[in-house]
Every structure is written in structure tokens, then in C-alpha cells.
């Protein structure tokens, strides 16, 4: 049976009253989480995760993934109406989205954003439909050294492609690995890094880290900025929506280019934030008339939105097929999969095709549902941001701590969240990237197991990572990613020198 057959089965699983209701609920919660300050997609999914332990995995993943889509849309809404990016990945949307909304074209800006986001997301899902089983089949030949090499590649590209300082990225990533090793060692059964604290024996959950770093840290940062949100009143009129839809084909090239950028950045762990910035930058560079950028150029809305959402959806491909998530939110979802007793990676396609294709089918429907819902409910969500922070802030704090308690019914976790919150605030202000820490916490055990098994196979010799063409190729690619900044500077230097030479001639 081909992918198409599986996909149809997936649709059959997903199109039931029960699942559609879950989708709507997920999208609505997601938009809410995306709109509220301090609650982003990773944090929202973490808060919802403990509530899904009793659900069946298909319903649970539909709920969580739809929340992710909703949060991406919610983030764009606040970017456009309030000039406050609800998500880091929608920062680029504020550049042109807010000016357009301020000039009285709020509906046009929102429609452009949502439609291009929807197109980007659907393109990402189609890519997953076409490629995932191929990637999974390829990954079936992997054994421990290859898996470790893939993890190495993922983390190397974080260091090489990230916009933050490489040393800071390294520190965050390794802190994540260190947190993952706290507690019982799965191979020897001994306790590690617990420093005599009994509360640490069960380990540090990545959910606790996400709630503190993303949730509380973000809130503390928000309080600093003063707490008045001045937004633009938006009433979505159907006639404006239709008029904007008619102008969409004009941005075909921007959408196509941004989709490709988004899909690439989503599959590699660069993630949606980098994708949206890069796409915005390229849209500006390729535009013949640059004068309108920053003042409400439609291409400045369409490009980052398309890239953001196609990267967001594409991030699920490496998570499903390889077990390596492409973004912080995907990492949290992958952690969820493991808690539900599923092993992300190539075997998932063989063991649970109903789960994989149910999820993929739900991504098609979920994104369509999300576009429709977000267009109709924007005014409602915009009004939530007008509720004073002295109410919204404490409620969010209470939700975060209630969520943290539910992970393991442990009061110690509450203090951990507080600690992570303080560090999240500190790290954010000093430009330490947080996503690598979360990724490393989720992948830590798997990466370490892969490493130790490889070492066992080779009796402690590192040459096993260069023992066959496949593993060598992945390791070489990883090393290339690691030194990429150096190469890029070298090329960039040459390029700028050439340009300088040309201008001197002219």
C-alpha cells in the first residue's frame, strides 16, 4: 500500500465527530496560548501534556499538534494588531504587519498573514506526506552509531546555524544533556548527579524546564516592559477578506520562495524563527521596489508567515521519521510520544502506521480548521489582551504551577519551575538560546544510549563513527555544520571584498 492509501486510512481515522471536536478545542487553546504573553507554543503544549496521559495517543497527538498550529496563528495575530510578537517566530511579521494594520487595513493584514500561513503549513504537510516514509525506510538501516551521528548532526547544526553565540549555544545544549542524566541511570541502575537529594532521583522532567524557562521566564521579561497593550481595534469584514483573497496570487513567488526556505529550515533544526527572518530578508532583497518595506508591504507579511508555518509543520518530519525534533515544540511533543509509550523514529511507521498517518491527516484538516477559526475569532482574542496584566499575569502563573504539579504530583517540581524561571529570564536577556536546552533534555537519554551502545560495539574506540560510508557521511556533515560559521565568514569576506572592488571601479 502506498503513502496515498495510508493517508486515506488516516483521514478515515481522523474524520470523526470526536476528533474534529478535539481539533477545534486544540486550535482554540492554541490561539489563546499564542495570544497571551508568556505562554508560547512550547509552554502551552507542555501544560496540556500531563492532561493527555489518560487519552488514547491519536486523540492526544491531534490535540497537541492542533494546539501548536493554533499557537502559530495566535502569535501572528498579536504581531499584527499589537506589535507584540506572541511567539519569537512571528517577530518578523511585526515589521510590516503592524504598519499595515495601523493604516486602517487590519483585516487585509490579518487575512494575508493567515492565508499565507495556511498555504505554508499545507505545503509542509504535503512534503511530510511525500517524504516521511522514504526517510523512515532509509533510517531503518541505522544502528546505534548512525543514530548518534544524526543527533550529533542535529546539535552541530544548532551551533553552526544559530544566530546566537556558539559558546552560549554549546553551554545551553550541554546543560540540557546534564539535566537529562540526573536521576536513575537506565543501564547500570545507579544514581547520577542527584547530590544526595531524594527529590532528584526521579530526574528533572523536560516539561518542568519548559514551563520555567519559556513560561515564567517570559512573564518576568514581560513585566519589565510595562504592562499596557495598545492594540488596534479589528473587525474582520467578509468583503475585505474576499478582496484580499483575490490579491493573493500576486504574491505567488514570495510564497513559493518562503515555502522552500521554511521547509528546509524546519527539517534542519534551525526552526521557524530563523526561517521567518531569513524569508523576510530575502523578500526584501529580491523586491524591485524596496521603499514600502517596513511601512506595510504585503510581501513583508506573506513571506515571514509562509516560512514560519511551513517550518513549524516541517519540524515534525525529522521528529516522526528519525526521532530528532526540529523545534522546541516538536521536542516537547516527542517527549509526549515517549510518555504515551510510542518510540518516535523509523519503527513507528511500521509498528503504528495508524498513528503516523492519523497525525499527518489531522495536520491537513487541522490547519484548514485553524485558518477558518482564527479568521472568525480574531476580535474575541484581541479583546483578551486588553484585560489588564494584573489579572492575566497571576492567572497564567497559577496555570503554570498547577500544570507543573500535575507532571508528577511533586511539590519539589514547583521550586524547580521557579528556579528555571529565574534562569529563563537571565538567559533570555543575555541571548542564550533556550531551544537547544529543551531538545537536549528530550534527546539526552537516547543520545547517551546510542553513544554507549556504539562504544560497546567498538570497545571504546571512537573510530566506530567513521566505520562505514553512511555514518561517516552523517558525521562529516555534522562537522561541516559545526565549522559553517567560519566558512560563511570566509565566503562573506570574499564577497564583500569583491563588491568593494566593483564599486571602486565604477
Amino acid at each position: 500500500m502506498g503513502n496515498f492509501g495510508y493517508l486515506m486510512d488516516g483521514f478515515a481515522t481522523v474524520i470523526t465527530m470526536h476528533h474534529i471536536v478535539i481539533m477545534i478545542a486544540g486550535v482554540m487553546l492554541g490561539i489563546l496560548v499564542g495570544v497571551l504573553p508568556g505562554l508560547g507554543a512550547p509552554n502551552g503544549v507542555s501544560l496540556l501534556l500531563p492532561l493527555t496521559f489518560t487519552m488514547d495517543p491519536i486523540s492526544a497527538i491531534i490535540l497537541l499538534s492542533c494546539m501548536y498550529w493554533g499557537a502559530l496563528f495566535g502569535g501572528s495575530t498579536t504581531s499584527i494588531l499589537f506589535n507584540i510578537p506572541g511567539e519569537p517566530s512571528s517577530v518578523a511579521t511585526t515589521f510590516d504587519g503592524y504598519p499595515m494594520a495601523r493604516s486602517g487595513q487590519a483585516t487585509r493584514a490579518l487575512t494575508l498573514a493567515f492565508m499565507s500561513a495556511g498555504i505554508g503549513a499545507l505545503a509542509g504537510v504535503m512534503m511530510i506526506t511525500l517524504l516521511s516514509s522514504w526517510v523512515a525506510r532509509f533510517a531503518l538501516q541505522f544502528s546505534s552509531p548512525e543514530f548518534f551521528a544524526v543527533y550529533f548532526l542535529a546539535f552541530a547544526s544548532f551551533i553552526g546555524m544559530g544566530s546566537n553565540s556558539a559558546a552560549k549555544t554549546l553551554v545551553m545544549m550541554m546543560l540540557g544533556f546534564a539535566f537529562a542524566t540526573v536521576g536513575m541511570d537506565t543501564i547500570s541502575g545507579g544514581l547520577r548527579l542527584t547530590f544526595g537529594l531524594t527529590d532528584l532521583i526521579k530526574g528533572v522532567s523536560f516539561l518542568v524546564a519548559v514551563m520555567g524557562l519559556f513560561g515564567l521566564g517570559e512573564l518576568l521579561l514581560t513585566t519589565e516592559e510595562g504592562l499596557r497593550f495598545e492594540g488596534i481595534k479589528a473587525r474582520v469584514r467578509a468583503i475585505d477578506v474576499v478582496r484580499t483573497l483575490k490579491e493573493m496570487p500576486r504574491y505567488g513567488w514570495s510564497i513559493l520562495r518562503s515555502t522552500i526556505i521554511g521547509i528546509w529550515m524546519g527539517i534542519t533544526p534551525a526552526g521557524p524563527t530563523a526561517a521567518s527572518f531569513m524569508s523576510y530578508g530575502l523578500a526584501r532583497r529580491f523586491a524591485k521596489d524596496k521603499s514600502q518595506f517596513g511601512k506595510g508591504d504585503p510581501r513583508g507579511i506573506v513571506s515571514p508567515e509562509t516560512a514560519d508555518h511551513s517550518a513549524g509543520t516541517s519540524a515534525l518530519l525529522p521528529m516522526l521519521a528519525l526521532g530528532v525534533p526540529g523545534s522546541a515544540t516538536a521536542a516537547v511533543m516527542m517527549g509526549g510520544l515517549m510518555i504515551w509509550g510510542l518510540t518516535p523514529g523509523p519503527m513507528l511507521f511500521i509498528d503504528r502506521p495508524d498513528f503516523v498517518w492519523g497525525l499527518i491527516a489531522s495536520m491537513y484538516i487541522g490547519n484548514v480548521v485553524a485558518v477558518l477559526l482564527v479568521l472568525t475569532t480574531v476580535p474575541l482574542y484581541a479583546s483578551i489582551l486588553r484585560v489588564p496584566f494584573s489579572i492575566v499575569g497571576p492567572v497564567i502563573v497559577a496555570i503554570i504551577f498547577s500544570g507543573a504539579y500535575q507532571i508528577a504530583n511533586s511539590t519539589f517540581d514547583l521550586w524547580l519551575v521557579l528556579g528555571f524561571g529565574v534562569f529563563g529570564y537571565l538567559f533570555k536577556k543575555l541571548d542564550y538560546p533556550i531551544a537547544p536546552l529543551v531538545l537536549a533534555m528530550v534527546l539526552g537519554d537516547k543520545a547517551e544510549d546510542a553513544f554507549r551502545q556504539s562504544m560497546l560495539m567498538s570497545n571504546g574506540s571512537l573510530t566506530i563513527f567513521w566505520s562505514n560510508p553512511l555514518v561517516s557521511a552523517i558525521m562529516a556533515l555534522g562537522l561541516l555544520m559545526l565549522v559553517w560559521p567560519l566558512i560563511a565568514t570566509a565566503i562573506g569576506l570574499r564577497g564583500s571584498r569583491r563588491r568593494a572592488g566593483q564599486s571602486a571601479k565604477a
Partner: protein
Amino acid sequence: MAEFDKGSVSRRTMEIVTALLTSAAGLSVCYGSWRSGIGWSEMGPGAGYFPFYIGVLIILGSLVTLLRSIFLSRFRGEIFIDGKRARSVFGFFLPIVAFLIVSLFLGLYIGTALYIFASMKWQGGYRWWICILAALAVSALFYIVFEIGFQVPLLKGPVENWLGIY
């Protein structure tokens, strides 16, 4: 160099403090792993083998950041936080600490209600009956969503016990 207001902290200081903190974390990871055995056991690499090198990398990365913040003048004149902002951050943070301590004794439902009441009353300046209504509404909503909807228990204290709610 820019003039600092009274009570403001420079970015450079915080960069150095944070780098020192992460190096300390790296050192404790190394120490902890060393205690679990970083060598080779009969079952292959020991339990501390992998985390030991993680700790080493944390220290290396922190040292690079530390040296860069000390010797490069990138953040010179940049302010991490000034007095006014620090006050509003602490004004938000300290009530959270109080909320946690109260919740440990009285449970999360009562803790939440008190915390929301207090924040609305003293930071939002609302009338007391609005604050009470909002606080009760949020706690009741939590109860409905968590205990009834998803059937996951939240931390409870003596008051729930006394009321007979489990």
C-alpha cells in the same frame, strides 16, 4: 562609557556572573559524574563516562563566554536592568514565591485564590468584592477543568480535607 543610573546593573556584570554560574554547574556535573565512575566498567562505559564530558564542555563553553565578556568590549555601556524595571520584576516575582509557600501549606486551590485576590487588590487596585469573585472563579474553574474534566488531582491542603473534597 554611558552613565548608569543609581541601582542599575550593567550587562557585562551579568554576562560574567552567568558565565561563572554555568561554569559552576559544569564543575558540579563533572564532580557528580566522577563519583559515579567515569571509567570503563564490565558493562562498557561507566555511568559517569558520558556526563563527565558534558560537564567538561559546559566549562569550556562558559570559559569562552567569560573571557569574551571580560576582554571584548561588546556590551560596554549596555544596561542589564535599571532600578525601575528591577522593581517591577520583583513586584511580580516575590508574590509568586509567597504563592508557592502558601500553596505548600494550604494546597494549590486556596493558594491560587489568595494569590489572585492579592495581586488584583494590591497591584491592580480593584474593589475587594471583584477580587474575591475573580479569585473564587479561577479556583473553581481549575477544579472543574482538572479534577472533573481531566481527572488529574491538584495539590490539596487541610481546607479541602475539612470540606471533604478529595
